[in-house]
């Protein structure tokens, strides 16, 4: 401790130790938090098209097209250990070849301090709803919203919200001309 720099070194090391202990304290203070909430999801005008997926093989696959309504208020999820939320809307259904298919249709990143209340109506899905095959006609699909908690100090938690909805695709394929102008499929 005799020289100026050894005092500075000791002080700096002590500061870092105190910061590390406080961060561990933050981790323990939110260890048992569940981060659960209820959201409202709605589906308008689901249709199925049968066309070639040019990003995959050249076969014709089923493409689902739908509009979404999303209502949620996620302000209370942001405690002092949450840095951002990663929301994703996943569609799950069953086909004769696979017992579970999951397709992500919409996602969003909400950082701390941004608006966490959404009332979206009749928005198009962000990603295409391709089926690997042709089994979307008259199939029962469940839409669930989930989020991924990204903490300051802690585990990465995946949470599925309460409030999932199901809908059934129509029995016939839609032709391109009868699709609505707000569809996200190929024209």
């Amino acid at each position, binding site marked *: *401790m*005799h*020289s*100026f*720099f050894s*005092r*500075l070194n*000791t*002080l*700096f090391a*002590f*500061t870092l130790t*105190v*910061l590390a*202990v*406080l961060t561990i*304290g*933050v981790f323990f*203070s939110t260890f048992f938090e569940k981060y659960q909430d209820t959201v409202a999801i709605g589906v308008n005008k689901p249709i199925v098209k049968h066309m070639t997926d040019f990003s995959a093989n050249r076969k014709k696959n089923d493409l689902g097209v739908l509009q979404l309504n999303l209502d949620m208020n996620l302000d209370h999820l*942001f*405690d*002092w*250990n949450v840095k951002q939320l990663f929301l994703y809307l996943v569609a799950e259904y069953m086909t004769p070849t696979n017992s579970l298919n999951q397709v992500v249709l919409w996602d969003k990143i909400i950082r701390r301090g941004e608006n966490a209340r959404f009332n979206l109506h009749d928005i198009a899905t962000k990603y295409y709803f391709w089926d690997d095959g042709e089994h979307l006609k008259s199939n029962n699909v469940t839409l669930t919203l989930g989020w991924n908690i990204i903490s*300051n100090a802690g585990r990465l938690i995946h949470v599925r919200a309460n409030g999932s909805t199901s809908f059934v695709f129509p029995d016939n394929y839609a032709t391109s001309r009868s699709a609505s102008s707000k569809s996200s499929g190929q024209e």
Partner: protein
Amino acid sequence: MIDIEWPFYTHMDFCGQKKAERLFQIIIFLFGIIGFIIGYMMQQFSVTIYSVLLGTFVSVLLTLPPWPIYRNNPIEWQKTIDSRIYSDISAQSLITKNFESL
């Protein structure tokens, strides 16, 4: 950078070093605890970090420069012996001579 001859002194006494170390440990620890409690109430972790950094800044001002309160117990060195007058005598008789002069 370590061995530059500054025009001011930079060292403290041993008692001063003990006081300085105890002081900055207490200051940073208190600012850390207060920052943790306020951060928990406001649910903002940045408040905790800023509080600890403020505590560090206060400690730097109070304990890094060698203030006079840290120099109140100067080390008492023994008187110097001019060893040139003993350069031709062996070590044994040097010790004997020192015992005689006490």
